[in-house]
């Protein structure tokens, strides 16, 4: 076969297109890599270390705004570093994008991940003690770092952290002849709710929901002395009385119209519960300490108090929220810069202002001693209850499949409150079997 001009030219053209395509990809790749490592700032005079941070919030989020502002302040104070924060769509969004980034080998330097997700991502997380000072690490409140260690190595720095807490409408409780300090146990809560409820006025004794990741249920299970998974993370341990007791209790309260549990099709249960409470239509509410700041800022027509989450057999409640990890694949300069940024986020100034604005915990011991926080305690003693409760903190399940597990558990929990004829024992046992199957499939 003789090569003709026609054939040659067509081959040449096809070749050019392919080369162009690959060249295009190649160029953008190298640019992306450069952006991840060093960028030139100040008109090229000084090389900056660029640190990408993937956050659960974007800048339009009220809490995200504080983080973005913090990065800006940090960048101004550190001309050689540029922290670039970007929102990735909540806890699940960060997790999903991190998976894709690990496949593509294009990970960020910092990722803000839900507390329990460290069980999955610890193999790629750097040892933070290499990049942060010992003083800074020791300064974190102990209850909040229980889920930061893997095999004794500090891998996740606390960021926005919270626990469940019981909110009280002291006026409604007093009107029902109940002590304003609220109930101490779940059984007491049941009795309080029945007495405080006034169905004719559409007032409920108690309002809550399971939360999208079964957080409140999980916390109650710990308070009954139960566990979600065994210490080594190999066995499900909630398929028993400790797992279903709270489900049975809430179901009874819903049946007796003492509890408001919105199970509407919208994913806004949290807002509906808070709304009911703030309207003075619920005497008690179980919610995150993270709501305290915004709720106290709102003007309430009643005396808003808080109490420890009720105990089952003991005081024990889950912590929640997000920690930050540094990806080990980043360059040494980036990791050092990221460590510096973590220390900035743990500085008293930032911790206090973030606490006051968001309601999330002050994460360091030294911040608790500051005048600003002491003054805040005086004005709003409610803030102190959450901190005092931290001595009973329990970390989230140490299981890398926890996300898949709670997705199925929460469906059964919801069903229990939607259809109160469902047997809570059967539902929980079924959820436990399903969870065990998920764990066994992906060891």
């Amino acid at each position, binding site marked *: 076969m003789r090569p003709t001009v026609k*054939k040659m030219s067509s081959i040449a053209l096809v070749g050019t297109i392919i080369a162009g395509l690959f060249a295009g990809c190649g160029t953008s790749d190298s640019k992306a890599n450069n952006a991840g490592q060093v960028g030139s700032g100040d008109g090229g005079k000084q090389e900056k270390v660029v640190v990408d941070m993937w956050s659960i919030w974007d800048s339009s989020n009220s809490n995200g705004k504080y983080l973005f502002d913090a990065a800006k302040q940090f960048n101004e104070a550190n001309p050689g570093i540029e922290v670039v924060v970007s929102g990735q769509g909540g806890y699940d969004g960060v997790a999903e994008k991190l998976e894709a980034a690990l496949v593509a080998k294009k990970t960020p330097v910092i990722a803000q991940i839900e507390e329990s997700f460290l069980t999955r991502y610890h193999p790629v997380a750097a040892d933070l003690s290499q990049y942060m000072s010992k003083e800074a690490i020791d300064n974190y409140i102990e209850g909040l770092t229980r889920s930061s260690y893997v095999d004794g190595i500090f891998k996740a720095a606390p960021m926005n952290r919270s626990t469940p807490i019981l909110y009280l409408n002291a006026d409604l409780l007093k009107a029902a002849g109940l002590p304003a300090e609220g109930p101490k146990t779940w059984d007491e809560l049941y009795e309080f709710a029945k007495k405080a409820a006034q169905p004719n006025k559409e007032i409920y004794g108690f309002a809550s929901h399971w939360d999208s990741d079964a957080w409140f249920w999980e916390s109650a299970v710990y308070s009954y002395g139960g566990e979600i998974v065994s210490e080594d993370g190999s066995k499900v341990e909630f398929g028993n009385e400790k797992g279903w007791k709270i489900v049975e209790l809430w179901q009874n309260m819903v049946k007796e119209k003492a509890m408001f549990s919105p199970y509407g099709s919208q994913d806004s249960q949290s807002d509906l519960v808070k709304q009911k409470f703030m309207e003075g239509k619920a005497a008690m509410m179980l919610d995150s300490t993270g709501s305290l700041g915004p709720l106290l800022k709102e003007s309430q027509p009643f005396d808003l108090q808080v109490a420890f989450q009720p105990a089952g057999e003991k005081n024990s409640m889950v912590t929640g929220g997000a920690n930050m990890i540094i990806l080990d694949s980043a360059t040494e300069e980036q990791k050092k810069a990221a460590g510096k940024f973590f220390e900035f986020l743990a500085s008293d100034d930032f911790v206090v202002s973030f606490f006051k604005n968001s309601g999330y915990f002050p994460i360091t011991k030294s911040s608790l001693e500051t005048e600003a926080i002491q003054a805040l305690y005086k004005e709003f003693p409610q803030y102190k209850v959450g901190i005092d409760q931290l001595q009973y903190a329990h970390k989230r399940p140490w299981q890398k499949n926890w996300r898949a597990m709670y997705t199925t558990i929460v469906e059964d929990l919801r069903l229990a409150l939607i259809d109160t004829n469902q047997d809570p024992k059967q539902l929980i046992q079924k959820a436990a079997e399903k969870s065990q199957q998920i764990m066994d499939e992906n060891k």
Partner: protein
Amino acid sequence: MQENIPAKQLHDKKGGPTLMKPGRMLPRALNKVLQNPYVLIAPAVILVSIFSLYPILFAVKVSFMNWDVVTGEQSFAGFNNYRSIFADPDSMQVLKNTLIYAFFTVCFGLIFALMIGILLQKSTFLTNLVQSVIFTPHIVSFVSVTIMWMWLLDPQMGIVNYVLKMFGFEPQLWMMSPKTSLLSIMIVSIWKGLGFSAMIVIAGLQSIPSYIYEAAKLDRSGRWSTLFRITIPLLSPTLFFLLITSTIGAFSSFDVVNLMTGGGPQGSSNLIVHWIYQIGFLKFQLGKAMAASVLFLILIGFISLLNFMFFSKKVHY
């Protein structure tokens, strides 16, 4: 050589127009290159290879592997991923759900589209207006449509339950109950797809020559016999097109499940594609997810083949 063809011969033998002679516009060498069909299809072939063929081959490869993306560990798994799909009790449930969902959304989608098409085929101001209104859901994103329906079907505040109660029916839990969750997503899917299907049916109906109806009228053909002996047979290519596209669409439904029910409660509304997504991104079992994708590809191919075998003969062209 084409350059020697006189301009007046730029029509083929049947009189249809051929490509305009580009010689005058472009340099001769480029002109020659562009006449090569392989060059013309090259961009499409390259894009399909990169964005479709490569991912499929990659999926087949990974389906035989265990792959932990966090640690980067990869190992050959043989047919283990395929075996675990057949052993998984969820797989039969999602297959059953998907078949029920596809059957009812396609059947009712086509029947309603045909009914609406026939009612609206005359071009008057009112029918044109109704056509536009019915078409609207097609151009609105699935996210908006779903959010709207979630309000309508809300068990406590939704208008659908309000209407049911008004007429003395029992209010339903809709997507909150395992009994009605699949029905809820079917209602939304049919409603969303109806406008597009109806529009295609109307276009098909309008292409049927009016003299055939006039002849039928002269032969005293009744309304039903005209529908079944003239309209539907002559509309069969359109209906066949809709059958194939809506079947594939129904099998690959994802957004409606993800947004409305997340596959629950208790997996009652989980469909195959959403289940694959859950295996991959919730349980992080990439090998198993890829194996499920490969099986799904074979299933879709098989169903399309069945459609072609059974219905293409009945299609009048």
